[in-house]
């Protein structure tokens, strides 16, 4: 198993390298003088020069890239120049991480908890009105991005009826109910899309699985429908669904950017927007790199899970 993981990580190295290149080159996109932009219009020439040095712009491209790679390996991912000058970008990310992690996890859990039963129900009642309504709803929800649902949820549930807090975040240490109450609306806003995609996939692959001979055997054993579907069918239908779940992570990360701003949550998405608006380039670069690594890690986890769901895929 560890050999499999090591092999996969090795295979990802070219991609990781390319990602560092992409995030590094972002700075090159800045028209004019980045140092000037960062330092601001009111800065003195000395300040601009100081900023230039802190951005590493006094050295040539190749040296800078190597230095950048160095900062990646040591884990600092560069230093913030505007938001919290001198502090490692990774520090800022780690500080904001718990918020986003909570949000992501709760969103995905909600998505799975809602989508799987929906998908199963639709598969078992294939062609019925339940199935068709579900299909229609999923098509519709794919058209409702987080920044549409977020404000709508806030308007209805927080402003008009005051059921849930509209803004902010409370850490787990403040108690589970409080933590959850602040997370529910933003998580729902993000979860709508994944619910639709996962639900569709669960329905589709379950329909395929239910047609298989081994399901007939399970029925011939006199097992209850719950057991036939819940044990025999689901495990085999899992792989495409888990794949979709993995792909949704990219969506969810994008969703957190918007949702954290709407709900004023101090997470990574908010950090991204703030660093962009304040031209704190090292932090922006670090965030691009970090989110790509998160996506790659998720893909690896998904791949590993395949072995659990389908023994035929296990290596030796």
């Amino acid at each position, binding site marked *: 198993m560890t050999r499999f993981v090591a092999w996969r990580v090795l295979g990802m190295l070219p991609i990781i390298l*390319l990602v560092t290149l992409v995030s590094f080159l972002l700075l090159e996109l800045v028209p004019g003088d980045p140092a000037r932009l960062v330092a601001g219009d009111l800065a003195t020439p000395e300040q601009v020069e100081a900023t230039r040095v802190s951005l590493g712009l006094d050295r040539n491209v190749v040296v800078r890239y190597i230095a950048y790679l160095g900062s990646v390996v040591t884990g600092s991912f560069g230093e913030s120049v505007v938001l919290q000058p001198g502090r490692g970008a990774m520090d800022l990310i780690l500080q904001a991480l718990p918020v986003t992690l909570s949000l992501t996890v709760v969103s995905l859990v909600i998505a799975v908890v809602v989508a799987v039963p929906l998908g199963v129900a639709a598969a078992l009642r294939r062609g019925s009105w339940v199935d068709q309504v579900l299909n229609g709803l999923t098509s519709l929800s794919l058209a409702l991005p987080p920044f549409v649902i977020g404000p709508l949820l806030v308007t209805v549930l927080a402003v008009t009826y005051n059921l849930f807090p509209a803004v902010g975040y409370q850490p787990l240490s403040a108690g589970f109910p409080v933590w959850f109450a602040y997370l529910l609306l933003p998580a729902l806003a993000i979860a709508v899309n994944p619910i639709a995609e996962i639900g569709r996939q669960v329905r589709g692959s379950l329909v395929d699985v239910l047609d298989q001979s081994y399901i007939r055997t399970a029925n011939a054993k006199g097992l209850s429908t719950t057991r036939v579907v819940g044990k025999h069918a689901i495990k085999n239908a899992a792989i495409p669904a888990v794949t979709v779940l993995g792909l949704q992570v990219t969506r969810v990360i*994008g969703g957190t950017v918007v949702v954290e701003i709407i709900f004023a949550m101090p997470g990574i998405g908010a950090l991204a927007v703030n660093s962009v608006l304040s031209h704190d380039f090292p932090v922006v670069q670090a965030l691009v790199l970090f989110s790509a690594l998160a996506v790659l890690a998720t893909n690896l986890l998904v791949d590993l899970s395949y072995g659990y769901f389908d023994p035929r895929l296990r290596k030796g």
Partner: protein
Amino acid sequence: MTTTIEPPRAGGAPVRSTPHRARFRTARMLLSERRTRVVLALLVLLVLVAFVGPLLSPYGSNEQDLLGRLQPPSGAHWLGTDSLGRDILTLVLHGTRLSLLAGLLAVGTAVVLGTPAGLLAGYRAGPFGAITNTVSDTLLALPPLVLALAVVGAYGGGVVPAMLAVGITLSPRFYRVARSVAATVSKDAFVEAARSIGCSTTRILTRHVFANAVAPIVVQVTFSIGLAIIAEASLSFLGVGAAPPSVSLGTMARDAFTHIREAAFPIFPPCIVIAVIVFLFSSLGDGLRDAVVSGGRRT
């Protein structure tokens, strides 16, 4: 909009030989379902309204009336006014036009970047394919919104750089679809024959392979436009997309949200319009994809 696990293959449609008739046959196959035609008609209507509408409106997109801000719908203003007193209906029309153009730009970029590379990579295995695969996988690891934010942050705001960035992140989809089609078609005996009589690679690619790729690519285009439009609106909502005097549905939503406690209504028009546009595109995509899979054999 649907995340496809495997790119849709032209499974039901036979591999074509003559591109000429193929163009019409493809179009007819794609439009074989009535549902598709209805949605397409609605979309055409939408496009017309979006482009002609602003010209017909009595209000300019920047006509402010600070005394009459945040008014509910009335005879003078069918959808009310925003926080600066501008007519919401006019803004919606302008915003729709911008969204459509933005979507087109992003998807156009994606198609141009992804399709030729995919066709080449699928047609002939080799180092080129390995490199492009890596690039494609890299792009897939970058969440579109994050990359677009970063690009906009570096280069400067505006819809164009944002949409180019979004287009880059969408290109892997087209790369994969094109590669899959090319790989399937290249194994076809027909292509062998063409090669044996000395057709150059480019010729084979442009005439035969591409003809078969058109349908699945069109399907992917419709799904991607929805994504691109949402991306543009999201970026504008965050304040890094469209900037005045441009009007975007996203900036409208931002404006409405900022003043949500003063007036609840203004948030609905932009949100509903976006939902409708994206829903129409994804329905179109569903219909087209079903047509591709069934080879146009229904109705």
